[in-house]
């Protein structure tokens, strides 16, 4: 109970400090945003489409586009809306199916589908997806028209036949198989990759620099005074550790839920994602406690904490993806807790893993946390026992 009182004071003091709140919550969120905007390019381009509502074939084209991979189709009512949205940059591209499309394709006319696109490479990529869908549809309609002309069947019956034949007739397809798994799957949200690395980077940074609170408490003489009350040194150490842990978990929860709500970040399966964060937070608070037992001044703790926090983050793949590391460096990286947690989130976010898939990472983190906490408590005990 007394340990909880000590932990609660830790949390209260941290929350009361404006600057620490900035570094604990706002700064990482900002970085998720900025880095996500700058580098998180793998999101789905938005394609607007306007098609006559009462023409079944036109609507069929819309459905086929919707079914296509790699684009995010949004239906608009009017042609000029689509064009305006593309001009504003709200859409990467737009497709306009003219009125009378059905009549044109079933009769003798020519249907011209207009494609509007923003300049740039993304427009070209979207163009190829859209063109492929439209080409396929055009082929289908052309075949139906030929069949209708040859047999005298009505167009819609001929179209049904064509679809039936197409399902059974041998066709040539190019089988594309990717070797290995994609490092960064196409459907990865633009902020997803950045979010987990910023989460880890900042939990660790905050925990290390948070050691200054511990040193400050000692310098103020408050720790000594706690020892003059009927409280064991072990309880004081436990309370401080719990306090640092609570701050780290609170930070993790705020960043995770904030990023999910504000940026739509996908953390993978919720339970393992949170457990992974909690295990990492436990380890980080162990490291912070050790720093608090070893550093002489709070300035020293902050300086060394920032340095170590950044170095571990960089080495552990919280700044640059581990996939870009050499084999040796990747092995070295796994001396940091970050690399293990990064692996865990990769498993959850990119490969849709579950709790079982990240148990090894959670295990390693908890083992590391236990070792650090034991070492820190022992050191702190000695410092307090004068």
């Amino acid at each position, binding site marked *: *109970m*007394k340990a909880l*009182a*000590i932990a609660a*004071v830790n949390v*209260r*003091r941290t929350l*009361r*400090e404006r600057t620490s709140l900035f570094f604990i919550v706002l700064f990482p969120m900002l970085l998720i945003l900025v880095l996500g905007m700058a580098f998180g390019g793998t999101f789905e381009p938005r394609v607007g489409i306007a098609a006559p509502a009462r023409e079944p074939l036109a609507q069929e084209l819309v459905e086929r586009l919707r079914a296509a991979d790699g684009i995010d189709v949004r239906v608009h009512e009017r042609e000029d809306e689509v064009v305006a949205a593309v001009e504003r940059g709200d859409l990467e591209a737009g497709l306009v199916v003219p009125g009378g499309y059905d009549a044109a394709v079933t009769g003798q006319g020519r249907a011209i589908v207009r494609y509007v696109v923003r300049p740039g490479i993304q427009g070209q990529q979207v163009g190829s997806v859209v063109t492929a869908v439209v080409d396929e549809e055009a082929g289908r309609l052309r075949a139906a028209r030929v069949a209708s002309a040859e047999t005298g069947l009505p167009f819609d019956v001929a179209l049904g036949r064509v679809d039936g034949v197409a399902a059974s007739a041998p066709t040539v397809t190019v089988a594309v198989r990717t070797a290995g798994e994609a490092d960064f799957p196409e459907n990865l949200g633009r902020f997803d990759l950045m979010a987990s690395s910023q989460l880890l980077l900042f939990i660790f940074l905050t925990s290390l620099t948070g050691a200054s609170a511990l040193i400050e*408490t000692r310098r*103020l*003489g*408050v720790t*000594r*005074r*706690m*020892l*003059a*009350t*009927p*409280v*064991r*040194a072990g309880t004081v150490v436990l309370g401080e550790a719990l306090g640092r842990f609570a701050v780290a978990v609170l930070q993790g929860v705020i960043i995770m839920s904030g990023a999910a709500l504000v940026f739509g970040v996908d953390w993978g399966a919720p339970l393992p994602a949170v457990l992974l964060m909690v295990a990492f937070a436990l380890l980080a608070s162990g490291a912070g406690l050790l720093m608090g037992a070893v550093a002489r001044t709070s300035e020293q703790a902050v300086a060394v904490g920032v340095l170590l926090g950044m170095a571990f983050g960089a080495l552990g793949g919280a700044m640059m993806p581990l996939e870009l590391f050499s084999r040796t460096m990747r092995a070295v990286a796994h001396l940091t807790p970050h690399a293990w947690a990064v692996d865990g989130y990769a498993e959850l976010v990119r490969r849709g893993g579950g709790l079982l898939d990240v148990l090894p990472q959670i295990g390693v983190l908890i083992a590391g946390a236990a070792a650090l906490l034991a070492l820190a408590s022992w050191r702190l005990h000695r410092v307090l*026992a*004068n």
Partner: protein
Amino acid sequence: MAVRMDVTPALRCRGLRRRYGDLIAVDGVSFEIALGETYGLLGPNGAGKTTVISMVAGVLRADAGEVSVAGQPMTPRTPAVKARIGYVPQDVALYPDLSGRENLRFFARLYGLSRAEARSRVAEVLETIGLAERARDPVGEYSGGMKRRLNIGVGLLHQPRLLILDEPTVGVDPQSRNAILASVEALATGGMAVLYTTHYMEEAQRLCDRVGVIDNGRLVAEGTVRELTALVGEHDRVVLAADGDLPAAAEKLRTVAGVREVSVGAGRLELLCGDGRAALPEILACLASAGVAVRSVELREPDLEAVFLHLTGKSLRD
């Protein structure tokens, strides 16, 4: 059959020793404080007062010797005994970013008070130390005197029978100082035993039933103020504010008839004389011949300063 009175002292220290590296900070200190007694440890800076107090409060390990509080042995590893003591450290030991009330609540919990008890005791203590109105403000915004009062308040939360105050008036304005002394007097009157350290002899004289004089880690004398001043005998203390080569002048003064002790401070000479009035002309003549300009002369009846000078050859204040 006589009624057997409880004679277990509030505090008993025996042969306390503590060294820091090569320095022996406390060297065999023994004393006792009776129930309800106010005991002063009087000595200059560095005498070892804080070190003694820290061992008594169980926050510092003693190299040798033992402390018992109301008959129970006290060490850093006996938390339960600590509930019997209210410890007020020399430096203000509070969270500056928490309010006065929050600080008190926190320590009340550590002293083992329940939530409800804590709430009512905190309110009472805030009244006692006169901070009820500022209870919501962060301690960092308090004046020096207010911080000191709150520092004492923490030691009162659990209503201990023994209160330990380590130089509670250092760096405090005269008004706050007076308030602190008055509240210590009130607590003592209420039956609390008090261990009070100071290097101000006026405080020891005003507050303490008995005084232990400490220097270089040793208790050099102990007794009531009357007993201690009697040690000096019929001696007066002469305090001179003077400019010039004071150490050389002090050498000469020691040869003056009637002068027993001479101590040199910054722009200050302190002498013990058998009869101050009689010796004064010769003292002044001696100083004049040594080329020392005297700015003021004070003649005092025996007091604890004189005791300290008599016992150690040094002045309490440097």
